[in-house]
């Protein structure tokens, strides 16, 4: 399971809308808990270096990854996953996504962006032990809503009820 704060979840989806019609990409920092849950504490936007085919390919420069890994280490966090968008394409991993996936145990989050608007977001956990037996598994996303947002939702619901 991938656990992520609502604000981070919305931020990665918004990133896909901002870069449309090109793919966005970024890194999920957090902690892996008992090998079953990747808990995201922070998302980091990254640049897509595939300017030759940015509408259907992405690549994060290794130099940028080194910096992000250093940032994670300084925060006491790990890289637990990555995200990218599929402009006008389903939120399913592609053969390219699979061929280029090497971070076993990490979550790969994909958001379909349809005509500029973020649609479905899915997560896939890369499992296996080597390049030969790796596989993507569908992974549930648990979105955590903090107290501030809970109160806002409750107030909005209360206001709406009062108007009825």
């Amino acid at each position, binding site marked *: 399971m991938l656990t992520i704060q609502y604000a981070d979840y919305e931020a990665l989806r918004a990133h896909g809308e901002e870069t449309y019609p090109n*793919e966005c990409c970024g890194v999920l920092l957090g902690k892996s808990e008992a090998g079953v849950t990747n808990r995201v504490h922070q998302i980091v936007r990254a640049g897509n270096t595939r300017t030759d085919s940015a509408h259907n390919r992405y690549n994060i420069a290794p130099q940028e990854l080194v910096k992000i890994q250093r940032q994670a280490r300084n925060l006491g966090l790990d890289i*637990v996953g990555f995200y*990218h968008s599929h402009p006008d394409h389903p939120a399913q991993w*592609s053969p*390219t996504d*699979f*061929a280029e996936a*090497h971070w076993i145990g990490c979550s790969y989050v994909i958001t379909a962006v349809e005509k500029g608007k973020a649609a479905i977001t899915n997560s896939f956990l890369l499992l296996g032990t080597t390049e030969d037996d790796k596989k993507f598994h569908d992974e549930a996303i648990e979105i955590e809503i903090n107290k501030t947002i809970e109160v806002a939702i409750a107030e909005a619901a209360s206001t709406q009820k009062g108007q009825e």
Partner: protein
Amino acid sequence: MNIHIPTPLRAYTDGKETVAIPGATISAVFTLLTTTYPELRQHLFTPEGKLRSFVNVYLNDDDIRYLPAKEDSPVSDTDELTIIPSIAGGSAQARCC
């Protein structure tokens, strides 16, 4: 020198994010690293002993593939080596055939 291990490979370094390995060159450090943690070898190198294409190694802020002496570059105890697998993909079909 300190070597920073990416999340997926920590299963082969007893869960350690950073391991300290002495050596005079990158190659010597790699040899001792994979002797200390033998399961790392197949994840870093091909059966022919070449660094796998998707594995990037940085000496401080420099990609070792672009260093003049590459893996034979000298290192000191204060240098840092970072192993970082590549991240790429996209909705396009994989190039084939």
